[in-house]
């Protein structure tokens, strides 16, 4: 386990990779339990508080979204190195989700369709964006567990606030969790 923190609260970190932030919205849907959340946990690196770098080791890392570019892979590995328990959150982290629809076709075809042949592309002037600063797209979208070891999964698109709450509270207690079918049924 991570060393005891000053506040002695379990440390949680979150990140959105190739996701839509829907999972994070769902986390915020815990409503007034957000007050309990603050009492129970300390939030480290997360888009919610905009902490960019881990300032301490986290007990639990929640990862939304799969990996569609090299930046995602880097960040995911950074999370794995800095979190005791890593949870893959939602369909995109688990199986690539909607972004993975592109996995069935070559990357080049997707780029041409999106930037050159798009109805809004300016004729003759359209280019496929390329800059050193831009993350490089991967050949396909990878679920998180195909890149690093994942300890738990939270199914759903997005997982409901209940699932977030149940998972966080049981993982922190060191318990496994058994989500009832009603909570993981998304169809």
């Amino acid at each position, binding site marked *: 386990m991570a060393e005891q923190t000053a506040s002695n609260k379990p440390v949680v970190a979150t990140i959105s990779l190739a996701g839509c932030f829907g999972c994070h919205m769902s986390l915020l849907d815990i409503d007034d339990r957000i007050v309990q959340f603050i009492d129970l946990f300390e939030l480290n690196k997360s888009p919610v508080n905009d902490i960019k770098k881990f300032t301490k080791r986290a007990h639990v890392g929640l990862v939304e979204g799969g990996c569609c570019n090299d930046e995602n892979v880097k960040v995911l590995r950074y999370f794995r190195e800095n979190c005791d328990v890593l949870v893959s959150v939602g369909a995109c982290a688990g*199986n690539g989700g909607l972004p993975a629809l592109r996995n069935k076709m070559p990357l080049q075809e997707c780029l041409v369709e999106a930037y050159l042949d798009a109805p809004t592309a300016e004729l003759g002037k359209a280019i496929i964006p390329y800059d050193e600063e831009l993350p490089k797209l991967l050949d396909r979208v990878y679920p998180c567990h195909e890149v690093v070891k994942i300890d738990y999964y939270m199914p759903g698109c997005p997982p409901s606030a209940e699932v977030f709450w149940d998972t966080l509270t049981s993982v922190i207690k060191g318990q496994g969790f058994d989500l009832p079918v009603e909570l993981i049924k998304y169809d």
Partner: protein
Amino acid sequence: MPKITFKIDGKQCTAEDGQNLVEAAADNHVYIPTLCHMKGEKCLGTCRVCMVKVNGKDMAGCTLSVSEGMEVTFDTPELNDKRKALIEMLFVERNHFCPSCEKSGRCDLQALAYRFKMHIPRFRYRYPFFEVYSKVDKLMLEHNRCILCQRCVEFIRDPDTNRKIFSMRNRTNKSMIQVDYRLANKMSEEQIDKAVAICPVGAIIKKGQGFDEAYGQRKYDQHPIGYEVDGGTNSK
């Protein structure tokens, strides 16, 4: 037919001699999941989800006939995990995007995944490329969801010639179902409905029908698959 007794996980069961194991188990309120076997129809033995142990060997339950004194092992962590792994393999083999699938909520594969509490398949997704075959007037073949159970191959035949309308093409991971579109164009409404209904997944779709059942009223919305057999007592 003479009655015999046999055991499933130590539970005394009675059945007709030579009865199909999956069906005999159901009569004794034990749900052995299947994706290819259909009650009263000849055994296909393609999906292997009905795996049980008899005489120390793993076997497809639907291929077995019960006999006096037979001892069947079914509900063990090892066998349940093997069954779950088989379901997971079916999910990674093709492209299953349930939220956009016409069969969602009434799909046997999806229902079994829920029953086995599958969160994420343990295998790598293959993301193969398949085009939807839509040449037939009234139906579509959505290869992305086919589990190659071969129900359509065996049980949907041209009524005049008894020829197969659906058949298998290629081998190994290139195997796929093909359809004789001339025969398929002759299919009656009832036969199309039957094909759609017996396909355990959303691979055979009737054109113009789509999402015709409301959420909450679909086959597996109220109860998990197998509920009519075991009343939900055995969760595996």
